[in-house]
């Protein structure tokens, strides 16, 4: 057993990530993210036609992928506070910093407010506008029932939820609501660092507020997923969809946390307080959420596949048309079977090199999972496809290029804000009453 960590080993004013060490990376990321976002916003606002539609999907894919990671950060922060945990005190600040990227993400979400983008992504919006304009004497629901397109009749029953005003209210409510609560959780933790009377006051406050923060988190994640991704095809619905997105969020959030902790240790930080035991626990959580993801994804698929009711199977039929089923079936092996077997052994979870590889792998397959949620809708929605057979896995190479560009831009922006959060406060809550318990963790 390694040396027993006492309060003498913990620096009195904590560890700070030296800004100069990451300044170069942060500047490059800020430049790519900033310029890229600006250009993308201009492209999405002013170009027309199929390019605009195709790139809108690329942008949603990239933004939603990074959002799920931020959601993961929020979840682990709230869960750690709520469950009164001691094991993760030394990595808790990383969770808070990851979660606190969420409110900044609204910068990348500006394009979703443009009608020119909305009309490609969410087809219920133009349908709603057209029908209410065509039948001014009726309510929205009645107007849609009088539509000549039978698909709109399905929308008629959903106008209490899918109407433009409520949608825009929710858009801001997600960022203000969850943004405030993750800010609050992080604030309690930061205040503890400089509290002149160190004690449990801030810790208990964080725990108390975590209870309803968790509810806000659940509601935000579920309805954001419903509004932005499930509503890509307004006629389809799944009560499992929020849980499905959550499973991927918690998994990829934890993978990001492990990568961050390993990178910081490589730079010479967190050496006293984070040990292989922490990687073991975090690896176990990755393992658990790999299984949970498979469980939820399969149960969503299974009931629809068995019942075989036309309006319920749309989502899966689209994802099994053309060569999309390569990805659908591939995810079973790539997202479940391989990581399941790789993470099964306990001694491997304590090896840093192995964890780096598996966490990057998890993030890549999670990216494919988000791709599988969003991009298949692009063909039918943008009108690029006239025949079902032309639904291709990756579309044209030009579209894939757009997907990659959007991904690089949004990930750069995410890294910029993440590094900003990491450098602005101490790397771990060194005055938390349970920091020694966490540093001497054994499981």
């Amino acid at each position: 057993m390694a040396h027993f960590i006492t309060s003498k080993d913990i620096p009195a004013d904590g560890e700070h990530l030296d800004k100069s060490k990451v300044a170069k990376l942060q500047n490059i990321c800020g430049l790519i993210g900033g310029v890229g976002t600006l250009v993308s916003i201009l492209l999405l606002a002013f170009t027309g036609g199929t390019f605009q539609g195709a790139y809108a999907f690329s942008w949603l894919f990239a933004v939603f992928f990074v959002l799920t990671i931020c959601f993961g950060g929020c979840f682990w922060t709230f869960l750690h506070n709520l469950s009164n945990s001691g094991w993760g005190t030394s990595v808790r600040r990383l969770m808070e910093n990851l979660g606190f990227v969420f409110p900044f993400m609204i910068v990348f979400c500006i394009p979703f407010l443009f009608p020119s983008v909305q009309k490609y992504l969410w087809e219920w919006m133009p349908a709603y506008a057209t029908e209410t304009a065509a039948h001014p004497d009726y309510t929205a629901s009645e107007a849609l029932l009088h539509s000549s397109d039978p698909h709109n009749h399905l929308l008629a029953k959903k106008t209490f939820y899918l109407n433009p005003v409520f949608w825009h209210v929710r858009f801001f409510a997600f960022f203000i609501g969850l943004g405030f609560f993750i800010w609050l959780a992080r604030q309690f933790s930061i205040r503890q660092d400089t509290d002149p009377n160190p004690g449990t006051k801030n810790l208990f406050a964080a725990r108390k507020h975590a209870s309803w923060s968790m509810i806000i988190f659940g509601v935000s994640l579920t309805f954001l997923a419903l509004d932005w991704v499930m509503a890509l095809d307004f006629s389809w619905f799944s009560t499992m969809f929020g849980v499905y997105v959550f499973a991927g969020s918690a998994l990829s959030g934890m993978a990001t946390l492990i990568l961050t902790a390993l990178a910081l240790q490589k730079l010479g930080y967190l050496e006293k307080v984070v040990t292989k035991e922490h990687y073991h626990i975090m690896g176990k959580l990755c393992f658990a959420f790999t299984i949970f993801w498979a469980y939820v994804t399969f149960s969503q698929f299974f009931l629809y596949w068995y019942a075989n009711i036309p309006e319920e199977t749309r989502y899966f039929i689209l994802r099994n048309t053309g060569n999309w089923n390569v990805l659908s079936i591939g995810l079973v092996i790539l997202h479940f079977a391989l990581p399941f077997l790789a993470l099964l052994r306990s001694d491997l979870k304590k090896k840093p090199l192995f964890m780096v590889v598996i966490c990057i792998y998890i993030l890549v397959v999670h990216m494919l999972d988000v791709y599988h949620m969003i991009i298949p809708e692009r063909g039918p929605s943008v009108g690029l496809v006239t025949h079902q057979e032309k639904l291709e896995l990756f579309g044209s190479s030009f579209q894939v290029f757009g997907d990659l560009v959007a991904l690089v831009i949004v990930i750069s922006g995410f890294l910029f804000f993440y590094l900003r959060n990491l450098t602005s406060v101490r790397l771990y809550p060194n005055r938390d009453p349970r920091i020694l318990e966490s540093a001497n963790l054994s499981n």
Partner: protein
Amino acid sequence: MSTKVRRVYGYLAEFKNASQLYKAAEKVRDAGFKKWDCFSPYPIHGLDDAMGMKRSILPYFVFIGGLTGFCTAVALAYSTQVGLYPTVVQGKPSNIFTIAAFFPVMFELTILFSGFTTLFGLLGLMGLPRWNHPIFASEQFAGVTDDKFFIAIEARDSQFSADETKALLEEIGGANIELVEDDSE
């Protein structure tokens, strides 16, 4: 007065608290004993390291058990539903593409077989169930379910010696040292 010869089980020593037990365990481990055990009213984190215990081989049994369950389920579902007597429901094909319908069976049998292997493997490795344990002959040992901490070093350990082991237990802070004799018939 009984003249019966009794088998010596080993020495039992009491320790004040969990921290004392932990430190004593490290010393017994370093002295090279193999057949000995710690007793405490509650689990102590890190005690298995302090005792120098190796990882159990149970996980390997469980993995093999789970794999057996998985293969059994695949074989069962495939042979009955595709080979012997296909049940065609809602026009679902009766070939390998029906595999989604078999997943619950595969999952359940994997869990069931792993669960059974865990339970019975654990009992087997621990030598349970058994009617009695020689250490129950000690009167003071009843306190272990309440607030007492003990270390027992067994006589069948190759390093055991009546005097030196007692001296060792005294040296590392053991109190109420008792030579436990097997009183079972």
